[in-house]
């Protein structure tokens, strides 16, 4: 076993365990901090998929933006949640909602089954690209390649998503304004 795979497993374990803890913990504040760990672990896993820029972005956008936003929203939202914060000390782990659990396991089962059956018959394009040698290698400069691609091949989606992001942010600001302001 290589160090690479050990690290992979460590990250994977960290992500999964933290995620499990995240969904089972009662205290929302702690859950959000656990989410922070999960996102970090996920970023680590992206690295193993040779997507360094994505990992960086993940940390910047998620940890720096989304998570802060969530925490602020949570802190701002209500005293009911704060009450909840205080009353949760008794039950560190909440009882699972069994229908959801069943459904979740069912999905897991189905997916794992399909991956296993699928791994025997890989799609052709993977084999072809392996054969052509057109796979991303650790030595490749991903950031540069991505920059080119955004500016050339994916320029239209890039612009659309930019506008979309702005619309979403403006919309968010509008929705969350005080009603008195109207």
């Amino acid at each position, binding site marked *: 076993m290589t160090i690479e795979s050990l690290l*992979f497993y460590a990250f994977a374990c960290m992500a999964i365990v933290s995620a499990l803890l995240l969904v089972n913990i009662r205290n929302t504040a702690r859950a959000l901090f656990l989410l922070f760990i999960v996102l970090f672990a996920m970023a680590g896993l992206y690295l193993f998929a040779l997507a360094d820029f994505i990992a960086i972005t993940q940390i910047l956008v998620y940890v720096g933006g989304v998570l802060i936003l969530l925490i602020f929203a949570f802190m701002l939202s209500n005293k009911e949640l704060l009450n*909840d914060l205080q009353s949760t000390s008794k039950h560190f782990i909440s009882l699972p909602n069994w229908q959801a659990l069943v459904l979740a396991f069912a999905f897991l089962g189905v997916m794992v089954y399909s991956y296993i059956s699928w*791994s025997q018959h890989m799609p052709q394009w993977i084999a072809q690209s392996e054969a052509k040698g057109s796979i991303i290698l650790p030595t490749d400069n991903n950031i540069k390649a991505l920059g080119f691609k955004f500016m050339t091949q994916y320029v239209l989606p890039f612009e659309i998503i930019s506008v979309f992001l702005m619309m979403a942010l403006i919309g968010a600001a509008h929705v969350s304004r005080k009603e008195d302001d109207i």
Partner: protein
Amino acid sequence: MISLTHFLVVSACIFCIGLYAVLAKRNTIMILVGIELMINAAILNFVAFGKYDKINYGGQVFALFAIVLAAASVAVGLALILNVYRHFKTINPQDIHELKD
């Protein structure tokens, strides 16, 4: 070299955990967190498959798009949550089942 299946299994786990959070949590913020987990699982898949597409870099590009979209969705989602809370004085999705005022 980590095989593709490894990534897929891990992403499946995270996805299912996110799914569970979405279905079971009694807190809208946690549902949002669940959605983030699922998006992350998807991003992991994008990235894992993207390794085999050096020509288009589709995997990584769309992973970035997805991250952006997720951020936008969180922003909009939180705005909605705050509004909903202001209206219903709760963020328990089970108590929010009426479309009318």
